[in-house]
């Protein structure tokens, strides 16, 4: 349903992505995996229209997205969870969620406050606290919940495990599995192969702005050469 075909992206004059293609279908979790600076975030931002894309096509449910302004892409049903969390620190948890609200969308699961507070019990307790006072893990949960408030048709999840304690990462894995169970496809960006293998069906390996490998998670785990070349630290 989400497809990216041969895009080239730039930050100003710097050519960052070359010929990047990927696809995401209903109900699957796909990981975009690569080292620091490989181009994961740039790919996701390209889909969101936050980075200049000069060539190639991006479409969602058959509708072209390239060149559209960010808010319209979000309105088409692409949910974006940024890296570094970016919660609105001076708004309460509840207000953060309200900011993410969009009307329900046909063919996409519908999320109400109560559903989200079930999914993220911590947030229910912290409802009236300022988001800036939450812990890193809680903030990560909040960004995911905030995006779900928009009842998206798919989710772009940029490095949700970054800088979080193992216990929190486990919670995030559970959340991803629960979201997946609702049939909502997720494009996950990640550096950690182990974390990726716990939730993903398929994988794309990215390095210096090019896709170097694509296949099932199983195939990637079997392929020592690719792992050695592009993922070993």
């Amino acid at each position, binding site marked *: 349903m989400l497809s990216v075909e041969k895009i080239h992206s730039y930050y100003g004059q710097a050519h960052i992505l070359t010929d990047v293609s990927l696809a995401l279908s209903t109900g699957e979790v796909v990981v975009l995996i690569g080292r620091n600076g490989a181009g994961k975030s740039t790919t996701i931002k390209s889909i969101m229209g936050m980075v200049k894309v000069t060539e190639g096509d991006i479409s969602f449910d058959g509708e072209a997205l390239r060149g559209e302004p*960010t808010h319209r892409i979000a309105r088409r049903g692409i949910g974006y969870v940024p890296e570094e969390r970016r919660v609105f620190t001076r708004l309460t948890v509840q*207000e*953060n969620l*309200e*900011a993410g609200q*969009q009307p329900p969308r046909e063919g996409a699961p519908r999320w109400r406050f109560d559903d989200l507070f079930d999914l993220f019990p911590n947030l229910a307790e912290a409802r009236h606290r300022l988001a800036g006072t939450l812990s890193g893990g809680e903030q990560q949960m909040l960004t995911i919940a905030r995006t779900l408030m928009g009842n998206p048709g798919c989710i772009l999840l940029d490095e949700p495990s970054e800088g979080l304690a193992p216990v929190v990462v486990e919670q995030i894995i559970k959340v991803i599995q629960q979201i997946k169970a609702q049939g909502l496809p997720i494009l996950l960006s990640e550096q950690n192969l182990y974390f990726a293998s716990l939730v993903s069906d398929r994988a794309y390996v990215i390095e210096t702005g090019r896709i170097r490998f694509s296949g099932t998670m199983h195939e990637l785990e079997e392929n020592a050469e690719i792992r050695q070349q592009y993922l070993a630290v």
Partner: protein
Amino acid sequence: MSVYLVQFLSGLASASALFLAASGLSIIFGVTRVVNFAHGSFYMLGAFFGYTFVREVGGGGIGFWFALLLAALAVGLVGLVVELVILRRLYKAPELFQLIATFGVILIVQDVALWAWGAEDLLGPRAPGLTGIVRIFGTPMPVYDLALIAAGPLVLAALWLLFNRTRWGILVRAATEDREMVAALGVNQSLLFTGVFVLGSMLAGLGGAIQLPKGGADLLMDFGILAEMFVVVVVGGMGSILGAFLAAVLISLLNTFGILVWPDGTLVLMFILMAVILVVRPTGLLGRPETAGHKAEAGFETALRPAGPHYKLFIAAVLALLLVLPVLVGEFYLILVIDILVLALFATSLHFLMSTGGLVSFGHAAFYGGGAYAAALLVTYAATPFELALLLAPLGAGLLALVIGWFCVRLSGVYFAMLTLAFAQVAWSIVFQWSDVTNGDDGLLGIWPSAWASGTLVFYFLALVIAVGGIFLIRRVIFAPFGYGLRATRDSTLRAAAIGIDIKRQQLVAFVFAGAMAGLAGALFVFSKGSVFPDEMSIPRSFDALLMVLLGGVESLSGPFVGAAAFTYLHDELITFEYWRLLLGLTIVALVLLFPQGLAGAAKHYLGRYLKLEAEPTGAAVTKREVREA
């Protein structure tokens, strides 16, 4: 005792209108990051619209308030047009262009108001049912003041509800933190910006309208409230509505009590209060420190380089032309060229501050006028000889710059700009009001050069030597180690601090130097005209300098000269029209929208590659490459 109580209440009453206007400014800045210099004009329009609507529909108690609301709506509509036509195209432009564009709006509004309502001050209509006087423990006080006292907190509460209890308000608050993220959640930023701008404009309009029964409507309201508004916003903390309220109350009380204690010194009191608060809390009472992402930048990317061979030839040709000019043209044109030389020096000093120091001053005329007044006062009261006065004037202006700069360099970006404007307005007010010494609006007359220099020809050469010498001196400073250090500061404060540059001190030195050079230009000015009036220190004069820099292009060192010439030409062409401000304003807005690089900047950009106007990159650029290779 009751006198003080009434005084206190009347201070609260005048705080309301100020708070309304300032909160609008603050809200607009919070979301769009644009300091709307035309906000004072919106306030003024609110008063004029209110005046008209009260006459048309304002019969009876309800009609009056309805008319005031209508005035606010009308100003909101004006804001809508300004946002859609001008600002929307400039959100991504360097802030200087936004500020200049809103200054164009000030000029346009001034003339439209003059055309629509005439030059006479209008006496405000009285509010039906609230015309009387109450006695508070025997001391009389207008009933309307009580209504005003209520208005401030009422609007504060309404704004609080709007921003905390509606989704729109939540989105606005979210956008002040992270606009891109708000867009990524599906919110149309353009709509949000427009809405915020309209709301802010309406608040300014309402502020202007509710003070009608007290202060009426006149054409000086725009700049008058602008400086006060900036002080309120800087003292209260940018972006904080409650802070704006507290600051408005504080400053209004200071004014009302100040008049009792020290009638001539209210401006000085305001100045001291602002100084104390800024030294103790640089972000204002309730402001937060600027985050890195929001840091306002002056935004000059192209590096200044020493002149290339062709450019030097070009300069030499221009100088040669200036030297033989008296043979070619008559006295009329010589006088015109003297004007251009004076303004070129003035503009170059500002350009130095902006391009090298990254400090966009909106009050540079304080030093130009300061130099002019220093010379004029020396001649008038101390019978100082012309030559000595010419020498002392830049020192006087430099001293003024030292005092003002000491406060201003503590702030950066738009805060710096606002503070310089506020200080310049204070300086203007002092000159304007202190008529025992300065002769106020009548100016100081009969300030002529010594006999040997009084002929047009000799004075022309004198002005040529001084102005060109001054400009070369500024150039020398730019390419001296001090100038390089300053630019390092501008480009990266952190890095500059790391290599041991004392940033604030360096900026202060630059500020004082620029002020002194502006003062020199001012001294030349006063001797060329024989008189000086407070206008030379006014905010419009500061904007003239900015306009010259802008016309010439901020990135080009010869820009200010081209700008001064273009400005003088433009001014002389336009001044013959009755509504020249309107034309000038429209020209400014058009120029900003069409040539964001300025005239000389654009020409240089397109021609530069062919004509080798700049020296080959050396120094800094090479080092960067080496660093990368290493």
